[in-house]
């Protein structure tokens, strides 16, 4: 008896392969794609089992999220308080909360279910930008509980609110005189804390640093769940210390047959106590089909909505001082060089255009010293790059992964506060990247915004802000290009485009199963297409809404 072959029949298969852009059947053997076409074209491979469960569905290559974080799996341990609907790891849709009262009500419900009185109540995803009226104060959270510590982590992860009990436990009162502790006129803290003060309080509440949260098996499984529900089959964890414990967790959990995604972690390549190149080489030697080491991540600047991104002249629209460097510009080349020489791919977080310029300078210098073809170093976020920077990127062989979700979530703030109208319109300039010949992807940066490549594609196609403003008509792209960005485009930035990103013979049998054809629905409905499930290496993972 030969190897087992399954032929999946679908209403339509979008392959992303120009040789055969559309098909009806795909044959799978040993977790890989054996062939694509009509059924009779595939039957020559011998006996097979015909699987018709997708007969009225549309298959796409498995979606690739090129920039997200395992932290998404961590935050779902706590109660979601965001303004927008968001799907949890169990598939449940958590309704967006449209007022302070709704936030308090959900917290009360959650609090009532807690049995351990000493356990702090933690909420996340709160974003006052969308809630008109006054800011949340400690007294609001005291209504939830006066005896239990309550901490609300904002969507930005840079601001939080505490109740009186948490303030008391942390020893923060009118005598605390610190930048970042928001106070009323009489000197009492309001309970809102910014930046370092927020991190400090969140740490006190959580008992660990939220941004360095431990990647337990449960966290990793939840992360994969959220990704799978969004139709993702390959997901990054784009900034990890890759400690022994983290690596051991990643190895064990990704090896579980029911783990529904391929995981691509990126190693934090600076401030490290060991030889990063040797470590990555060692890790890469143990790569599997579902766990791929080999990316390096560097963070050059901060965020634009937090006014910490590094901007070129004329800087922030509201006159705020320029942002911060996370790595000194002069250090960047020295950090890049060993990884570059050893053949690794470096992804650099650059939000502002000064940061993207400095990153390009560093890459250019590295390439002058150690020329290397097809390095695919990638600028991540790259939100403010203009055409000239994209031309440099094209010339240097640098790829871009643009933060299209920002258009929707913070587009209005960029228009009014951070960038002003004209620069806001050319943020996350996907069309410019295309015109300049830059290989590109688009991303969510989950948990900063929800993971969901179809939504991200919708953002790149429609460029609508939360208030409905069209931001940058000239930077819109077509649906086909957007679909490419969330499959082959992202796969390219991970150097996995030979294995994933399209439905072609030899690649992994990774599919996203859709209820409708994204090329046929109106552009405005791209984000609303139902995800029936995913196929990873030939194995079906159903969405909770779909029959198994």
């Amino acid at each position: 008896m030969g190897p087992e072959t399954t032929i999946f029949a679908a209403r339509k298969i979008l392959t992303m392969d120009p040789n055969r852009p559309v098909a009806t059947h795909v044959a799978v053997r040993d977790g890989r794609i054996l062939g694509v076409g009509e059924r009779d074209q595939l039957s020559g491979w011998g006996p097979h089992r015909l699987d018709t469960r997708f007969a009225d569905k549309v298959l796409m290559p498995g979606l690739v999220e090129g920039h997200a974080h395992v932290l998404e799996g961590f935050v779902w341990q706590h109660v979601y308080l965001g303004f927008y609907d968001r799907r949890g790891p169990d598939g449940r849709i958590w309704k967006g909360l449209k007022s302070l009262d709704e936030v308090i009500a959900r917290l009360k419900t959650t609090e009532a279910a807690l049995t351990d009185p000493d356990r702090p109540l933690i909420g996340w995803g709160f974003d006052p930008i969308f809630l008109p009226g006054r800011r949340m104060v400690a007294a609001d959270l005291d209504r939830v509980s006066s005896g239990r510590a309550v901490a609300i982590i904002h969507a930005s992860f840079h601001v939080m609110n505490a109740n009186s009990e948490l303030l008391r436990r942390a020893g923060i009162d009118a005598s605390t005189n610190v930048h970042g502790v928001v106070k009323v006129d009489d000197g009492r803290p309001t309970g809102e804390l910014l930046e370092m003060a927020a991190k400090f309080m969140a740490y006190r509440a959580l008992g660990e640093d939220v941004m360095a949260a431990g990647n337990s098996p449960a966290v990793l499984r939840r992360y994969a769940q959220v990704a799978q529900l969004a139709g993702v089959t390959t997901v990054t964890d784009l900034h990890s210390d890759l400690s022994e414990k983290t690596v051991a967790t990643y190895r064990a959990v990704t090896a579980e047959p029911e783990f529904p995604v391929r995981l691509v972690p990126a190693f934090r390549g600076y401030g490290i106590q060991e030889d990063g190149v040797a470590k990555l080489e060692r890790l890469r030697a143990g790569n599997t089909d579902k766990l791929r080491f080999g990316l390096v991540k560097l963070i050059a600047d901060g965020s634009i909505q937090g006014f910490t991104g590094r901007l070129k002249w004329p800087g922030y629209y509201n006159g705020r001082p320029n942002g911060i460097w996370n790595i000194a510009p002069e250090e960047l080349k020295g950090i890049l060089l060993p990884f570059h020489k050893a053949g690794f791919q470096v992804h650099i977080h650059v939000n502002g255009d000064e940061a993207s310029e400095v990153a390009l300078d560093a890459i250019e210098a590295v390439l002058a010293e150690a020329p290397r073809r097809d390095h695919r170093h990638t600028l991540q976020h790259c939100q403010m790059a203009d055409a000239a920077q994209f031309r440099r990127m094209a010339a240097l062989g640098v790829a871009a992964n643009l933060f299209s979700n920002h258009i929707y979530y913070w587009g209005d703030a960029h228009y009014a506060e951070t960038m002003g109208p004209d620069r806001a319109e050319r943020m996350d300039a996907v069309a410019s990247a295309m015109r300049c010949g830059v290989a590109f992807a688009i991303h969510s940066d989950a948990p900063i915004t929800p993971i969901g490549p179809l939504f991200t594609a919708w953002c790149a196609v429609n460029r609508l802000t939360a208030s409905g403003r069209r931001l940058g008509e000239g930077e819109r792209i077509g649906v086909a290009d957007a679909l490419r960005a969330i499959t082959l485009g992202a796969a390219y930035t991970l150097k996995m485009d030979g294995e994933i990103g399209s439905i072609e013979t030899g690649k992994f049998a990774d599919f996203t199963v859709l209820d409708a054809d994204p090329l046929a629905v109106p552009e405005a409905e791209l984000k609303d297409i139902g995800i029936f499930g995913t196929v990873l290496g030939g194995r079906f993972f159903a969405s909770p809404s779909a029959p198994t």
Partner: protein
Amino acid sequence: MTPLSVIGGFLGAGKTTLINQLLAEGCGRRLAVLVNDFGAVNIDAALIAGHDGETIALTNGCLCCSIGDSLIAALDGLQRRRVPLDHILVEASGVADPARVADLARLDPALALDGIIVLVDAERIRGQLVDRHIGDTVRRQIDGADMIVLNKMDLPSAEAGRLVLDELRRLWPDLPLVTTTGARVPAAILLEPAAGLPAPAAPNRLSAPADHAAQFLSWCFEADRPFAPQPLAQLLDRLGGGVLRAKGTVFLAGDPAQAMLLQLAGRRWSLAPHPRSEPSGRSQIVFIGLRDSLRPTALAARLAAALVPRRGHRAGAATAFWPESGRPESGATE
């Protein structure tokens, strides 16, 4: 409360060199140092008492800890060790704003911010201040400092060195400044004085390398009358005159039975109830400053002017001495 100091300064200013010296030479304190790059810390193997991954314990009682992913977690880990510590020193990264790092000491009731010391590279600072990418970062670092240590003064020519000093004094006229080479600064300048008050009549030798001792002067002010709070605060806000450090017991009018602890690091000072109250009524403050600009007689007069003007009190007395010679200079304050 454990005092915490922050060492800041741009890449290459000499932070690691300074920390290596503090750890190697000891400083008479159980000091914990939190560093960004463990690999750069160079500790003689003979000094290492133990090493457990994130922390190196030294035979001289000091600890050196890696900050790793999170300074907050590293500080928490240090506090959880429950080892007795006299002082914590945090190395800010080369691009960090040390004032924001210092916020942690202001947030945590178990910590007290001692001071923010920012190292400056004498050879590169003028270029850095106008650099289009990092100029604002470097200026922000110095803006938040309590004291500047202008390092590598051996590198620029005499003329260039003068220009650097002029530039820094023009931009930050109120910021006390120490010049040095090889990041050598006495622990008594960097860290809150460890011991209690010195015996007033004895010379207070700075534990400084011999080649630098001559740069500093230690001087003690004493008074039997209490200080008037407002004039004292105004004086401390605009102390100037080369004072880098002060520590002492102060009695204030209004509550003359409550001994207050005065701590001053550069332009930062604090007055808080003394943990070990000594209701002697006699204020004693030790000042450490730059020999070439600290004028004990003038400072004594200014301090005396901040005392409560009341008859019947004995005059305060000041004693000054040069550390290398121990030659005292005494003078009545009024």
